């Protein structure tokens, strides 16, 4: 089971033992099936679904035409649900809702993390930096030396590949797995998921049924 949605925000609920449980609320679906791919037609089985309509004036013609085949408006967030060996059970134009998550114990959530811009090594890779005093001058948050003879054997005086440095941080795809699914609200299309998921409120997320059977 897979569904596209939007992170609404975090709140708390009490579980059956009276303990506070931090939860993230995701408004998931209803998603429209835009295209069904099978081994015969495309070489693999998948369901392409879209979430949230876009105004026709804001969308390119091919996207509009693609959605029209399913009898739907163009969608803002379109992703594929790979089915591997299973045969797709739906047809274009069908709606997929949170009702499919009924009975699911855990979920995996794919989101896009908040962008942090160009970040230094202390923030990006949790480097230690340098002391605040004891003679340290102008390099309190510096990354230190990049390479040396001892660590650089056989690299011809170059920095090793993958050396952790400053750079762009965040705004990357982050998957968090095995979130307990607390409740499903079919009326408001809500999934209540335990714990935090990546991204800002209002960010688009993909929710998949988890593989672990144990809640």
């Amino acid at each position, binding site marked *: 089971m897979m569904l596209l949605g939007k992170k*609404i*925000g975090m*709140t708390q609920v009490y579980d059956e033992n*009276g303990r*506070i449980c931090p939860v993230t609320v995701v408004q998931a679906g209803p998603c429209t099936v835009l295209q069904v791919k099978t081994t015969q037609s495309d070489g693999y089985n998948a369901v392409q679904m879209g979430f949230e309509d876009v105004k026709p004036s804001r969308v390119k013609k091919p996207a509009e035409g693609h959605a029209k085949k399913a009898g739907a408006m163009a969608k803002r967030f379109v992703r594929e649900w790979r089915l591997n060996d299973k045969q797709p059970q739906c047809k274009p134009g069908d709606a997929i809702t949170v009702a499919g998550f009924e009975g699911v114990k855990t979920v995996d959530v794919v989101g896009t993390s908040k962008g942090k811009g160009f970040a230094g090594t202390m923030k990006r890779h949790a480097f230690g930096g340098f002391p605040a005093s004891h003679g340290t001058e102008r390099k309190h948050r510096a990354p230190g030396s990049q390479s040396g003879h001892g660590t650089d054997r056989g690299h011809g005086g170059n920095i090793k590949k993958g050396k952790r440095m400053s750079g762009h941080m965040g705004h990357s795809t982050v998957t968090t797995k095995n979130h307990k699914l607390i*409740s499903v609200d079919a009326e408001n299309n*809500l999934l209540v998921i335990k714990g935090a998921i990546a991204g800002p409120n209002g960010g688009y997320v993909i929710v998949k049924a988890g593989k672990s059977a144990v809640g």
Partner: protein
Amino acid sequence: MKNQLLEKVAAKSQKQTLPKFKIGDTVDVHCLIKEGEKERVQIFNGTVISRRGSGISETITVRRIVNEQGVERIFPLHSPNIVDIKPVRSGRSRKAKLYYLRDRVGRSTRLKDEHTDQSDGTKE
């Protein structure tokens, strides 16, 4: 918490009505304690010195003196384990947070009763 959908989710584990009391009041907090299979109610008596948060995350801090040692407990108001909060004695306070009580000992920790305060005024 402004989002209506978030409020809807939280409302399911929220209490409909909360007991009425003020900052400075002495209250009995009835909390449910589970010991294995058994359940019993324990009462924590003390002065409400702060109330913070909103909605489901609202909490109160209750302070009392045990063996000349100050003890503070923080109770989430909407917790199902907090069965009841009964005001025992009202206390007059001019501040929302009574953290100054932490620096006081003995009689000075007592707050004037709201009602006796009024009667004192009429006597003279």
